[in-house]
């Protein structure tokens, strides 16, 4: 799962990680492309959120399930999806790795964060992301088709990681 931090620097992200109950991911890619491993790949981290319905996004739900999913609250939909297995659902906290990329959403003076747009992922960051995704894919046997931007999987600012590339 590919994220952007909405923090200006790796240090600001590390500072956020030390708060009790803080969320986090397994890797952090700094502005210069440096890759930090922030958790063992054997450990679960909390980086996903409630799952969107994969079959809705991929237009392969049965008609009855489509109807039911569109009536569900997000928490009910998350429970519904959690009962499935990958690849019938999107990966969740229990079976995914999180890669954060340092980057903020702008303009910072805009009080409504939903109206902000995440800064582009730079060339050094994308080069490191490509290397890391391919290394993890090869080492752990993760299909490239199972790598997602965060807003694809959860309800988030849709510009997060929009310019991240790993193919």
């Amino acid at each position: 799962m590919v994220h952007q931090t909405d923090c200006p620097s790796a240090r600001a992200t590390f500072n956020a990680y030390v708060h009790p109950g803080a969320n986090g991911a397994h890797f952090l890619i700094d502005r210069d492309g440096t890759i930090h491993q922030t958790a063992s790949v054997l450990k679960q981290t909390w980086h996903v959120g409630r799952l969107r319905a994969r079959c809705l996004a991929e237009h392969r739900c049965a008609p009855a399930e489509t109807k039911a999913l569109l009536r569900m609250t997000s928490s009910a939909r998350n429970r519904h999806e959690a009962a499935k297995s990958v690849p019938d659902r999107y990966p969740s906290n229990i079976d995914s790795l999180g890669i954060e990329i340092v980057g903020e959403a702008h303009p910072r003076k805009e009080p409504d964060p939903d109206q902000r747009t995440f800064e582009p992922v730079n060339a050094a960051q994308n080069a490191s992301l490509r290397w890391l995704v391919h290394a993890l894919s090869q080492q752990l046997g993760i299909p490239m088709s199972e790598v997602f931007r965060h807003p694809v999987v959860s309800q988030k600012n849709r510009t997060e990681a929009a310019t991240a590339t790993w193919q």
Partner: protein
Amino acid sequence: MIGTLRPRTASAAVLAWLSITPALALANGPAPVPQSASVALRQIHIVSNGAWTDRISGDEGPEHCRAFRLTEPRVRRILTQSQPVTERAYAHDLDASRCHATGTARTSRGGRVHWRVDAEGRVLLTTSGGPVSYRQYLGPDLTGTRKTPATAPR
């Protein structure tokens, strides 16, 4: 004190109390959980109900969001019972929704607060060029289930 109801007067002129975060919440980086003075709200006005935005990823279309409708008493309950969260939590950690409602509230000091509530219980309070408050409503009203606090794993 934040988000706590003070005793109502007989005239019920002062209806609710909540806090507004200092403008420094817009500084770069994670903002601390705000602690500031309370402001009384006199009137709540709904400007839009069942609104939809494409700034958030999701499967809800405009027609789905039309069902997300808040009443003034419900808005009052949401505003007063919501809890402050950091700007980072609001912007990055909490789940968001395409469906929302917006409106204004008059304060006892004569000011006007703009509010925005989405179907995931995120609450945004702003004033013109002034303080901003990021909050989360944990109650059951919006989705029928109690939500996870911002400090818990997302």
